[in-house]
């Protein structure tokens, strides 16, 4: 039996649930981080407050 292709594996195994559980305080956390809700898109936008850990990633 041939190995399934990546496309077949994606269809059966990736994001078959549209929504994963998020945290109850998600919106409050995002606001506290300095992001701003765009009411038209529902997206929290902006750069937020400076992140003291941002340099740890070595260039991410």
């Amino acid at each position, binding site marked *: 039996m041939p190995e399934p292709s*990546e*496309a077949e*594996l*994606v*269809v059966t*195994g*990736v*994001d*078959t*649930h*549209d*929504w*994963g*559980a*998020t*945290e109850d*305080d*998600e919106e409050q*956390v*995002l606001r506290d*981080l300095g*992001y701003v809700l*765009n009411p038209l*898109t*529902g*997206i*929290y*936008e902006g*750069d*937020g407050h400076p*992140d003291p*850990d*941002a340099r*740890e*990633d*070595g*260039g*991410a």
Partner: protein
Amino acid sequence: MLEAARATLGMKGRPNTITRDYARRNGDEFLSAAWCDQAVTYWARQSDNVAAVLPKGDRAYTVWHAQDGQKLGRWFAGTAANLKAHAKPGAIVFFDWKGGDAIGAVDHVGVVERNLGDGRVQTIEGNTGDACKRRVRSASVIAGFWNPEYGLEDDVPEVVSLGAGQDQKVAAGAEMVVRWHTEFTDDPKAHGDDGVAVRASGTRWCVCDALVKIGGLQPGDELDVAWSRYDRDGEKFLDDAWRLTCHADSTGRVEVSLGGQLSLSTTNQLRLRVLNSSPRPATVEKVTTARIALFKR
């Protein structure tokens, strides 16, 4: 990496820019497929982090992408303690909605934007509700994560070798862009998809060389050959990076090697042009070839 992810916040629906980019290299079946890992692939390619984030190449299947990190010895199980201690901005984080830590059960993926320091992370994810959004996630749904070695440079340049493959006519007093019917490269869908353009996946310094053979002229006839840059979509000419005026030899032929160095980025593309100023049609012969080496800057 994070800048590239932020730039896609708000993208939604499918097909979209991310799935089109993935499908262009990997097949149309990805146009409407789950796109969370296609998004990670897109961000890595847009930010020149392919070597660090995609050690085995493009990924749409999250399980394989998690295994890539595991094989590098970089995998951390998704415990609160591991998240608190090791999840760095830019980490690739994998989710199992059933709450397990098994790689084989991974459902979804995103990238860590911030470690909240309390065993949770704030992420950017593609295909969360069919959109690209910021999220807050805890160990209860995180199977694991790995920190790519950002700053990792590819040791060798990408090299694309092209062949005209067919004779191509240039009318008298006209110009044409050489169409490449043959591509010899390790990554055959990375360049020349529309047959004329070479597109870089990031900012690149290019060393290019074309061996152009043209017939059908009379001795002394004049024409120009040029490596030309256009905007990304190929609709607007930008400049001739290297251009050479040639004259037909005693047999009515031009054989010229046109080399040069130039920069490419994600905003432009490269084409080889022939501008025939002679009073008769010319033929760019099928044996015309080109080789372009693309170095990271």
